[in-house]
């Protein structure tokens, strides 16, 4: 999935030579612009879930390193249940309509008419699902710390 970054690079750069040689209203230029946008959005949406899965979202670390393992696990569990999962639920609940409408009419990109705009909406769905999976995974990992462990 991460390799899509290269597609973003190529599509967004290629806009320039294409505009210089063929003009900005050509099909090719518009398609590069629109699909470049789609690739770009997909990269950061998938990236957000990926960063969550491997625990690389920015934290304020100065004090955290002084907490005990149990404290840290409690914070993780609380955060996922109180903050992350409800937020995803809000996105899913209020977003479902927009996505369904877009997919059922198979709308085109606004302003340019390039086909395939619902792919953008589907990327949003993938985002919410992946985030939820990653969040639950982190949650379970943190609760594992509460299980009685030998020698502790």
């Amino acid at each position: 999935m991460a390799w899509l970054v290269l597609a973003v690079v190529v599509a967004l750069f290629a806009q320039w030579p294409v505009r210089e040689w063929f003009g900005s209203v050509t099909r090719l230029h518009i398609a590069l612009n629109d699909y470049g946008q789609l690739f770009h959005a997909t990269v950061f949406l998938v990236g957000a879930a990926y960063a969550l899965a491997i625990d690389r979202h920015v934290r304020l670390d100065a004090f955290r390193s002084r907490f005990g393992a149990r404290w840290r696990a409690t914070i993780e569990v609380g955060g996922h249940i109180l903050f992350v999962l409800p937020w995803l639920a809000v996105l899913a609940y209020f977003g479902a309509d927009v996505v369904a409408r877009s997919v059922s009419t198979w709308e085109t990109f606004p302003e340019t008419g390039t086909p395939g705009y619902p792919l953008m909406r589907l990327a949003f769905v993938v985002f919410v699902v992946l985030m939820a999976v990653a969040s639950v995974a982190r949650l379970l990992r943190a609760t594992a710390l509460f299980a009685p462990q030998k020698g502790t």
Partner: protein
Amino acid sequence: MAALLAALMFPTVLAILPLGFPVAFTVLGVALVYAVLGQLAGVFDLHLLSALPIRVLNLMDNDILQAIPLFIYVGAVMERTQMARDLLGSLASALGRRPAGLALATLVVGLLLAPTTGAIGATVVALGLLALPPMLSAGYDRSFAAGIATAVGTLGVVLPPSIILILVTDQMRIAVAAVQLPGGATSAFLMRKLYLGMVGPVALVVVGYLAVVLWRAVRRPDTVPAHPYAQSAGRALLNIVPPLAIFAVTLYAILSGRVYTVEAAGGAAIAITAWALVRRELTLRALGDVVRLVTRISGALFLLIMAAGTFSLVFRGFGGDRLARDLITTTLPPEAAVPAVFAALVVFGFFLDAIEIVFLVVPVAVPPLIALGGDPLWLGVLVALTLQTSFLLPPAGFAIFFMDQVRRNIGADEITMFTIYRGVLPFAAVQIVVLGAVLTWPVIATWLPGQN
């Protein structure tokens, strides 16, 4: 009641952040909790949250922000190959024969690396890991070495084509649109104009940093000893010229208005990839590392933007923006409004990284200033400059904490927080002088953009 809840939102975030839960989730989570509290108190309608998915979908459609992953890619290639390390090594060999040569080399590498990372923390860490060990082993004064590495790491906020400036542009557009200028003469806030506006202030900052370094080289050469380091001139040029050329061409292309920022960023990404291939450093595996790094950094960055969007949605739902506007426009004398807002910005810089501040504070605090007659371009420049300054201010500047992480990472136990404070002070002084100058003489920022 609504006003009370709105007023408590910011302090709650600041109080919960030290627990160490990811910043983005803390910001969006606190907003949600307040939304529920507001609903229970009958001063908030949870249906307002239906705008949330729309905000995310609009973020996906936002084409100003496309340049961000591209610049991150450029930085990732330089960091994951030996390019950044070789650049520093060769600059050190070219400049190291004289006192403070390594410090100058750090400054140049920082100028190249800093604009390509969106988070100040990440830049300070990357630059610190790269530049601090050689300076320490060369026998530099510890506090000076830590100070310059920290200060240079913050240049990413203000130096075009900084990612932070792209975000400021995005938010300033919204702020400008929110203020109905009399006569309806709303002029678009252009990224290129902001870049041009930064040129004057950044030049002053860099000259100030240079002065600090040179002053030391002349007055206390024993604290910044020469560091003879043999490398052939040809080898050194090969390491130094291509990355500098890519950076210079990209910047020129953007500032001259010949190409859009996004396209220039794409061009820089392709050029740096080609150069890494020529150096035979970009194996499939290394490229895999780079794209994964870009994916997760962009993901983390855009999630922060979504979090800030969630926060401001709820804050507005409580009427918090009107509250802030009244506070700024009616309780303060007009001439005190700008300094007061930017003083508040400094305080936020103690707790939050640049992205969060740009997205949380600018949309609330800047429109009233525009309404009072402030030039949006000047205000945009001030936002960037203030943020950079606040990251460097002891005792709580954001960048200082990250340098503390670096010294723990490299096991430099002889460096304490106090060592870093002392080293940062002269650079922080430069920042304050430049900030004061731009506040007093807006023309430093507005002259160049006005020329074309």
